[in-house]
C-alpha cells in the first residue's frame, strides 16, 4: 500500500512518496525517506515492490548511471536513463529470479528544457506520462488528476493538486501511510519541497 | 500354484485411485442471433446451423420461435434463446405456455413489454441453475412500433434498437453500432455526430444478410442458412437466405 505518485507541471516534476515502511501488518518506520534514489543531478526514481528487490535494484541503477557519468563526463537525459532502467528490468524479467519493482522516473531534460515523467511497472512496460501512480494510490488519484491536471500548471498549482491527491488518499486508504514527502525536480536539480505529516 | 490362482488378470479394473465421473449439465450449440427494431417492424434473425464441438448436428434447425397472440397477427411476438439449445427450447416452450395462459386469464393480447418482464421472472427463477442462453424477444408495441428486448442468462434485460447474441455476437455488435446507431459517424457539413434514425425494412434486410454473410466467413459456428422473421402489421413473415456451408 505504498503511495508513489508523480505529477508534471510546466517546468518541474512533483514526486510524492509515503513515509510509512510497512512489512505485513506492521508499520516498521514512520519517517521512511527511502522510497526514492537520485540517479543523476536532474533525474530521480521512486519505487515500490518486493522489499529487498526495490533498494537493490534502485541502487544498482544508481551506481551504473553514476559510473557512466564519471567515465564519460556527460549527464544522461531522463529518457536515456529510463531506457537503461527498463532494459535491465526487462532482462531480469526472463531470468531465474526477476526483480519485482515498480518505478517512476522523474527528471528534467536540460537539452529539451522540459520536465519528464516515466512510468515503468515490474513487467518493464514503460510509458511517458503527464502524471502517474503505482499500486492502490492510482485508483484513488488518477481520476482527480484527469480532472485537475494541465500541462501548463505552475509549481504552486501543481502542489495544490498534489495536496488534493494526498487528502484523498488519507481519506480512502484503509491504513495510515504516515504522511508523504513531496520532492520536486526542475532545472536546478532535485529538492525536498515539503513534508506532509 | 496358489500364486497363480490369486494373481490378478492383466486386464483388471481395480485401480489404485478412485475414478471420478462428473456430469456437466451444460453444452454449447453455437449459432448466432440478431434483432433490429424499426418504425413499423421488428426483425429477429438467426442462422440454422446446430453444432456440438466441431461437429455439425444439422444444417437446418430453425431457432426463431413465434408466439401467437390475441389481437391479430400483428401482435405476434418472436423469440430466440441462443446458447445451450436444450435450455433454449425448454425456455421457449414454457414461455409459449405462460403466454397462452396469460391470454386465457386476461382475455387480451400479451404486450411485448409484458412478455419481456415474464421472461425476466422465468430466467431469474432459475438463478441458481440458469438457462444457459442469451435471449432476445421482439415484436410490435400497441402503436405498431418495433421493439427489441435482450436478456442475459439470469434475466437482466434492456430494451434496445438492435442486439446480437450468441457465438458471433462480438463480431456483429460493433458493426450494428456503426451501421444502425451510426456510432463514430459525423455529418460532413456540420461536424456533429450523426443521429440514429429508423431504417427502412429493405435496408435493414440488406444489412442483416450482409452481416451474417460476413460473420459466416470468420466464425465456424455460423453458416448454412439464415432465418429471418419479420413482424409487421400484416403479421409474421419468414424469409430464408442461404449462407456458406463450409
Amino acid at each position, binding site marked *: 500500500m505504498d503511495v508513489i505518485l508523480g505529477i508534471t507541471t510546466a517546468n518541474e516534476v512533483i514526486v510524492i512518496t509515503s513515509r510509512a515502511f510497512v512489512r505485513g501488518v506492521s508499520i516498521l518506520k514512520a519517517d521512511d525517506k527511502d522510497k526514492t534514489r537520485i540517479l543523476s543531478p536532474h533525474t530521480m526514481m521512486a519505487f515500490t515492490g518486493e522489499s529487498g528487490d526495490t533498494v537493490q535494484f534502485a541502487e544498482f541503477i544508481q551506481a551504473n548511471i553514476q559510473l557512466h557519468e564519471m567515465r564519460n563526463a556527460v549527464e544522461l537525459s531522463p529518457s536515456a536513463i529510463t531506457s537503461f532502467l527498463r532494459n535491465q528490468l526487462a532482462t531480469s524479467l*526472463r531470468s531465474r529470479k526477476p526483480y519485482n519493482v515498480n518505478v517512476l522516473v522523474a527528471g528534467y531534460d536540460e537539452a529539451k528544457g522540459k520536465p519528464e515523467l516515466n512510468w515503468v511497472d515490474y513487467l*518493464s512496460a*514503460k510509458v511517458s506520462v503527464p502524471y502517474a501512480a503505482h499500486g492502490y494510490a492510482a485508483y484513488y488519484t488518477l481520476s482527480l488528476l484527469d480532472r485537475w491536471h494541465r500541462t501548463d500548471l505552475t509549481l504552486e498549482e501543481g502542489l495544490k493538486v498534489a495536496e488534493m491527491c494526498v487528502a484523498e488518499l488519507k481519506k480512502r486508504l484503509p491504513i495510515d501511510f504516515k504522511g508523504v514527502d513531496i520532492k520536486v525536480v526542475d532545472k536546478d536539480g532535485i529538492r525536498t519541497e515539503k513534508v506532509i505529516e | 500354484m496358489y500364486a497363480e490362482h490369486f494373481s490378478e488378470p492383466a486386464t483388471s479394473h481395480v485401480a489404485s485411485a478412485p475414478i471420478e465421473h462428473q456430469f456437466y449439465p451444460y453444452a454449447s450449440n453455437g449459432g448466432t442471433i440478431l434483432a433490429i427494431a424499426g418504425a413499423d417492424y421488428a426483425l429477429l434473425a438467426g442462422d440454422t446451423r446446430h453444432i456440438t464441438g466441431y461437429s455439425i448436428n444439422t444444417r437446418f434447425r430453425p431457432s426463431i420461435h413465434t408466439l401467437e397472440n390475441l389481437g391479430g397477427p400483428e401482435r405476434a411476438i418472436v423469440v430466440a434463446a441462443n446458447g445451450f439449445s436444450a435450455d433454449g427450447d425448454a425456455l421457449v416452450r414454457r414461455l409459449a405456455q405462460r403466454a397462452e395462459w396469460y391470454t386465457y386469464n386476461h382475455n387480451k393480447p400479451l404486450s411485448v413489454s409484458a412478455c419481456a418482464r415474464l421472461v425476466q421472472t422465468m430466467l431469474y427463477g432459475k438463478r441458481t441453475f440458469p438457462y444457459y442462453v442469451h435471449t432476445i424477444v421482439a415484436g410490435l408495441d400497441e402503436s405498431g412500433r418495433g421493439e427489441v428486448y435482450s436478456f442475459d442468462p439470469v434475466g437482466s434485460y434492456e430494451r434496445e434498437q438492435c442486439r446480437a447474441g450468441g457465438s458471433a455476437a*462480438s*463480431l*456483429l455488435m460493433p*458493426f450494428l*453500432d456503426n451501421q444502425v446507431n451510426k456510432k463514430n459517424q459525423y455529418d460532413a457539413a456540420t461536424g456533429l455526430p450523426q443521429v440514429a434514425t429508423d431504417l427502412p425494412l429493405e435496408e435493414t434486410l440488406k444489412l442483416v444478410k450482409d452481416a451474417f454473410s460476413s460473420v459466416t466467413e470468420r466464425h465456424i459456428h455460423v453458416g448454412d442458412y439464415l432465418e429471418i422473421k419479420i413482424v409487421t402489421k400484416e403479421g409474421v413473415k419468414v424469409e430464408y437466405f442461404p449462407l456458406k456451408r463450409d
Partner: protein
Amino acid sequence: MSDPSSINGGAIVAMVGKDCVAIACDMRLGMQALTVSNDFPKIYQYNNTFIGLAGLATDVLTLSEVFRYKVNMYNLREERDIEPETFANLVSSTLYEKRFGPYFVGPIVAGINSKTGKPYICGFDLIGCINFAKDFVVGGTTSHQLFGMCESLWEPDLEPEDLFETISQALMNAQDRDAMSGAGGLVYIITKDKIVKRLLKTRQD
C-alpha cells in the same frame, strides 16, 4: 486475466487498397482494468515498412528495439532499405527463436514493395507463423470485433482516402466494444511515394 497477452490491451489492424496499404492501432496502455496511458502507439516504422505490435507491453517495447537493431544491421550490410516481405521473414524468425519462451505479441506487418510497387500485409502468431492475407489482418484483444468490422466494411481496390475511412471506422467501432482497447487511434496510409499519419480523436472510456 493473468494471461500475458491480455494484461495491457490493444487493437491493431492493417488493410490493402488500390496501390496503397493502411495500418492502424489504438492508443491505450492499461494494467488490467486501469488505464495508465492514452498515449501509447503500437505501430513502428522501419524504412518503408510498418509493424503493429499488440500484446504484452514490455514485449512490444523489447521487440520494437530488437527490430530497430536488426533492420539497422540489415541496412549497413546490404546498403539498401528492407522490403516488407523480407522484414516479415525477419519478424517470423525472431519470434520462432523464442519458441519455448515466447514474446507475448501478435504482430502485423504492412508496407509497399519499393521494387514492384505491390502492397503487402501479413500477420503472425506469437511464435512467428505468418498469415499471408490479401485483404486485411487484425490483432490484439479486439481481434474478434475487428474481424466483424473488417469483413463487412472492407472491399477491394479502395483509394487511399476511402481506405482511411474504412480502416478508421473498423478500428473505432471495434475498440468501442472492447474495454481493454481505445483511448484514441493512430492510422498510417501508405502509398508508393507518400506516407500520411493521422491521429483519431475518440472517446476515452
